[in-house]
């Protein structure tokens, strides 16, 4: 089943008086259960592509389909609903809510989805266990290392059983060992749960974990390759 389909997608940004293209007519299809890396140099359009896939932004032209639904013209509330139930995000700088504990950060998407307390408790504990951070459940982000915070972010991204997790440079702010552990967790969850993972990176060591690589150059798909 196709999870994401981009049809001739362009995205231009207005910088002062100049219109700068970030994506120039991208076509891409991602199937369920894929573990795909979007690679390319800075400014190649990786983050823009993830933001369009995540319904955080709208294309200037072209169409974005998620689970077969054209999301291009959805209003902000519908896009918010789609993000809540279908898509999980992992950001480079972890993006946890500072005043909340690890447990509460993971619980947040479940609260927004209206899950009951017992269900939330079970799911949060299960996820914190899955990313190996149960002992840090009561710690706030400023009491955890970068690697631990990113594990919490992954747990949060998976809280509502999304079909798709989008990770923008998930290891860029981590040392090699923590970066490797984060990628191993993502690979394991992809294999165990079947959630589709798409992540942007320019680190070759991280790319090695991907089963498919989409390379962007100047807003265009330069290469699209499957690995064994």
């Amino acid at each position: 089943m196709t999870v994401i389909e981009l049809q001739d997608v362009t995205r231009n940004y207005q910088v002062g008086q100049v219109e700068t293209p970030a994506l120039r007519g991208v076509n891409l299809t991602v199937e369920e259960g894929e573990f795909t890396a979007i690679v390319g140099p800075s400014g190649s359009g990786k983050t823009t592509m993830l933001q369009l896939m995540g319904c955080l932004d709208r294309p200037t032209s072209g169409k974005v389909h998620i689970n077969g639904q054209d999301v291009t013209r959805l209003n902000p509330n519908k896009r918010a609903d789609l993000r809540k139930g279908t898509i999980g995000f992992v950001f480079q700088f972890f993006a946890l809510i500072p005043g909340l504990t690890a447990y509460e950060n993971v619980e947040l998407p479940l609260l927004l989805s209206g899950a009951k307390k017992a269900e939330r408790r079970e799911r949060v504990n299960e996820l914190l266990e899955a990313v190996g951070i149960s002992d840090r459940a009561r710690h706030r982000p400023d009491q955890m290392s970068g690697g631990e915070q990113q594990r919490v972010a992954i747990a949060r991204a998976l809280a509502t059983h999304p079909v798709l997790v989008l990770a923008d440079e998930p290891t860029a702010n981590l040392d090699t060992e923590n970066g490797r552990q984060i990628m191993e967790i993502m690979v394991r969850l992809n294999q165990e749960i079947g959630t589709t993972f798409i992540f942007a990176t320019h680190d070759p060591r991280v790319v090695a974990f991907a089963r498919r690589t989409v390379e962007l150059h100047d807003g265009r798909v330069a290469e699209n390759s499957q690995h064994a």
Partner: protein
Amino acid sequence: MPLAKAQAFTRAGERASAVVVLLHDQKDADTVASALRAPGLDVLTWRDLNQLMLQAMESSMGMLYMFYLIVLAIVAVVVANTLLMSVFERTREMGILAALGMKGRQIMAMFLMESATLGALGVILGVLLGSLGVYYMATEGIYLGDIDVAEMVSADIAYGETMYARFQWADTAVLSVVCWIIMLLASLYPAWFATRKEPIDALRAL
């Protein structure tokens, strides 16, 4: 001077041109005046004798209400400014919440709830601190003994040596509620401003 001596001195016989009655409580003035009223007698209360001073008091109350309005306007500006700063500082957080699927109206409701709670806490704290001041003024008062108040204001009223404050429950309740409502109204713009941000713009702050 004894009454008899004064009558002899003024050749008034058994008559008196005016009799001043001093009461313990100014609230009893009307009752006592009604009881004393009789044909051929003019009975005047302290209010009748001090019209000018009462008018001055009324106009000073008007000034006091103006003062209330100015304070409330300052409260509104400070609250709106603080919340707007909070919106700017929490752009990142709003971007994260939007990415997690929180809708604009939910973000607005969150800010309004925060304002309502903070406003209520502020009002409670203000009433407590204000009450302490009133309690002090009500028990210790302001000593006026060295000032000849009667000469300054009116010789027809008996003044004590100390002026005491009194706690006005009704005024306190009305001002607290008005203040809280003004804080809520002042937080509407910052809350609305928070919802105008696109998730993508908020996330760029990451």
